[in-house]
């Protein structure tokens, strides 16, 4: 069911942890707010120590990250945030109790836990959308959106989320299947799995 991480040699496995170690090192230095030798050496020791002592599967994006795209993503995110903040705030002030909403199904095309998580995360931050449910297998998000007044709003929200997905995929250097929609309506074997899952 789960793909266990393959075990090549130690070295390459260690190599895959380098990004994490670098991040931890950076974190350490930032926290201390100093760049003295003690901090640097200590930070390296701490980072390596933590990674070695508590081994976890490596985190590698499916492709080569694109710094520019990532920057673009960040900018988009921030503007989205401001926009979403304004919308919601306005809703709260203007409509309050009578805010209409809907739950929208958004099929995704990326097929990676990391990316789906990222999309869900960003979606939750975009204006008026909160991810209610994630169907990982069939790559769908169920998004609670607000305000939604009509069917057109629903479609727009769906495409908004898919736009975010595209941006994320690009930032992560992830192109494959970006335009391919998720699998169609339920297959019989899925139903079986689900009911089994319910029983267990």
């Amino acid at each position, binding site marked *: 069911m789960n793909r266990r991480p393959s075990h090549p040699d130690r070295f390459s496995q260690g190599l895959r942890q380098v990004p994490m170690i670098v991040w931890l090192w950076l974190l350490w230095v930032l926290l201390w707010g100093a760049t003295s030798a003690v901090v640097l050496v200590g930070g390296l020791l701490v980072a390596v120590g933590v990674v070695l002592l508590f081994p976890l599967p490596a985190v590698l994006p499916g492709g080569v990250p694109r710094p520019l795209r990532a920057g673009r993503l960040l900018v988009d995110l921030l503007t989205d945030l401001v926009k*979403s903040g304004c919308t919601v705030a306005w809703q*709260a002030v203007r409509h309050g109790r009578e805010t209409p909403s809907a739950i929208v199904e958004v099929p995704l095309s990326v097929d990676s836990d990391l990316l789906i998580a990222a999309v869900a995360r960003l979606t*939750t*931050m975009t204006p*008026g959308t909160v991810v*209610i449910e994630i169907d990982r297998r069939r790559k769908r998000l169920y998004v609670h959106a607000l305000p939604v*007044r009509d069917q057109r709003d629903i479609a727009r929200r769906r495409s908004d989320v898919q736009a975010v997905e595209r941006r994320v995929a690009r930032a992560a250097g992830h192109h494959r299947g970006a335009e391919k929609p998720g699998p169609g309506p339920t297959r019989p074997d899925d139903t079986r799995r689900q009911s089994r899952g319910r029983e267990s």
Partner: protein
Amino acid sequence: MTTVLNAVTAVLFPAGAAFCLLGALGLLRFPDTTSRLHAAAKAQTLGLLLVLVGAAAQMPGRHAPVLLLVALFQLFTAPISSQIIGRTAYRTAGLDRDLLLRDELADRLVRDGIPLPGHDRPQRDDDAER
């Protein structure tokens, strides 16, 4: 330099505070749990980010990055709880179905032939209503 930073702060602080207030208002005014989640997840986070950036502008150099780090962590963690709360709200009937224009998740479930478990009115925790 300082003037620029001061100006940044002078803009960001009230803006951030305002978003906080609006978010809180939303939290108070929105009709059901899921809707309130919007206020909590976004207005709040935004307000906080603005305030943090504004604060970072005033901090001595070595501490400013840490404030940005805080912002980063907040951005990273806030959606997590939002999503979990959101899904819990849906699963436990924490949202008011009457307010939904459309529920595609329920549609999907009906399509799959999975009956929604008895989703009547959510059980309230409030005792003040007694």
